[in-house]
């Protein structure tokens, strides 16, 4: 575990030393602020209209109408940003030869994979921290429920974890970052929209496709529901992704 943490620490340090982390946090803040303002204004108009129609404030819910759409928007930004984080993880180490340092150090493949995973998750936490001031503002001027908000963050991290696990695996297959990034993006998008087809393929197929869709499992978290089904889905998805990555690194040794 200490070894994995050492790798994670190095990864995180790498993100912040090369300005990757700062660039991502900065541009995320711009995009995110834009979405926040737009959704906030839409929410404001909606609540004013509702008020005019004689419906009271209780009928519109801050969590449902503002925070939820908001995180769906954030997840779209992440769809684009995460491949940029994961594409270099292995591809860069292979290209520059530093993979030789890791593979000849007294570390297991799993420790390296978990370390890289935790490092990327650390960066995601840092990017998510950018959203905290906005959320804090909501608490100052209104009364959002904090429990669904917490489950939303939790679900969001789990969902990102799945994407990172897939991204690590794809990065471990190539030494070219552009290929890793492009393929990762395509796979993410596929996982995103896999349930669209379900509607046309009969009820049974629909169930299967909906179960496979990464984003479907996120929806309950935004409603404040902690369903073990979703947690198990995400946890097994991440574990399987990391397992595949470790196998891929190992097979590389054999193939040379």
């Amino acid at each position: 575990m200490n070894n994995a943490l050492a790798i994670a620490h190095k990864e995180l340090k790498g993100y912040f030393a090369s300005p990757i982390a700062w660039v991502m946090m900065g541009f995320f803040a711009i995009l995110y602020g834009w979405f926040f303002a737009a959704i906030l204004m839409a929410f404001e108009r909606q609540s004013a209209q509702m008020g005019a129609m004689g419906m009271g404030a209780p009928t519109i819910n801050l969590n449902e109408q503002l925070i939820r759409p908001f995180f769906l928007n954030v997840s779209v930004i992440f769809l684009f940003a995460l491949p940029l984080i994961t594409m270099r993880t292995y591809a860069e180490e292979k290209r520059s030869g530093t993979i030789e340092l890791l593979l000849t150090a007294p570390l297991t493949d799993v420790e390296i994979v978990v370390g890289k995973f935790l490092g990327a998750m650390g960066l995601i936490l840092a990017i998510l921290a950018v959203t905290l001031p906005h959320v804090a503002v909501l608490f100052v001027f209104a009364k959002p429920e904090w429990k669904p908000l917490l489950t939303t963050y939790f679900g969001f991290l789990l969902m990102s974890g799945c994407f990172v696990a897939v991204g690590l695996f794809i990065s471990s297959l190539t030494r070219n970052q552009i290929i890793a990034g492009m393929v990762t993006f395509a796979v993410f998008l596929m996982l995103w929209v896999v349930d669209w087809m379900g509607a046309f393929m009969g009820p049974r197929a629909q169930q299967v496709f909906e179960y496979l869709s990464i984003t479907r499992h996120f929806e309950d978290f935004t409603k404040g529901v902690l369903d073990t089904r979703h947690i198990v889905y995400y946890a097994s998805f991440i574990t399987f992704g990391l397992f595949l990555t470790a196998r891929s690194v190992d097979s590389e040794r054999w193939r040379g």
Partner: protein
Amino acid sequence: MIEVQHLTKRYGPFTAVDDVSFKVERGEILGFLGPNGAGKTTTMRILTGYMPPSEGKAVVAGFDVIDQPIDAKRRTGYLPETPPLYPDMNVRDYLMFCASIKGVARADRRSRVNAAMERTRVADMAQRHCGKLSKGYRQRVGLAQALLHNPDVLILDEPTAGLDPKQIIETRELIKELAGDHTIVLSTHILPEVSQTCQRVVIINKGRVVAVDTPDNLTAKLGGSQTTYVQLDPLGADAAAALSALPGVTHVGAADTRDGVVGLEVQSESGRDIRRELAAAIVTRGWGLLELRPVRMSLEEIFLHLTTEESAAAPAAPEVANE
């Protein structure tokens, strides 16, 4: 300290290392010599646990590199061909990271890093980003990284490649200094390096070991025929014929002409010192003897001799691609 038995590594149909066996004793410096693409890097990668062999086994510091990789790696320091540096990290952070993944206890890390930096003379670059180091410093930081955990075995893949002459001498000195506490395997395709630093040489070509011996023995044994250089003035017209007639002499040829004085190369049967007879014959004929010295076959010639002989003996051997 290192025992390699029948090591073979195949990449698909191509055999990079073919039935290689050798041993390295504690504290010894073994030179791994061969042309580019001979299988040096592949062998070293197997020894360091980077990749498994297709066949055979390797034991490093008492641990099998396949069955007990973690224990073997803990006792091995490895400098790959390109030093594995992270360009965005500074030298000290990089070495601290290396120390942590090599299992150096937290309390010792700082002192170990400092010691390694002192030893490899990179302390003045501690705050510099690895990506901005010169080639010489990169190589030395790579060496510092290999030394950090005070390993029993050091595996250095072309440690002097790309260095300037002064740095090459410094690096060789450093390697010799390290030999007492560490067992060292270094690869090179530069021959003088081997005769200057190594106690024993493994010559490898096309994945096969063609010779294992000390540099001196190799020079002596593989000399084949012995050559003596003589310079005569005046040079008698029949000098070549007269010298050829001496017992033991196999061939006489012109070597060079310096200031109008002709030098001859006299080849004789190996193991037979003909210098006395040669001198006597020259003097009795009244020729002026300006110079007479044995010409030793240089390691370069032996190397070429061995590697070309090997390819002539096995013409069907597959072409070795450079990795």
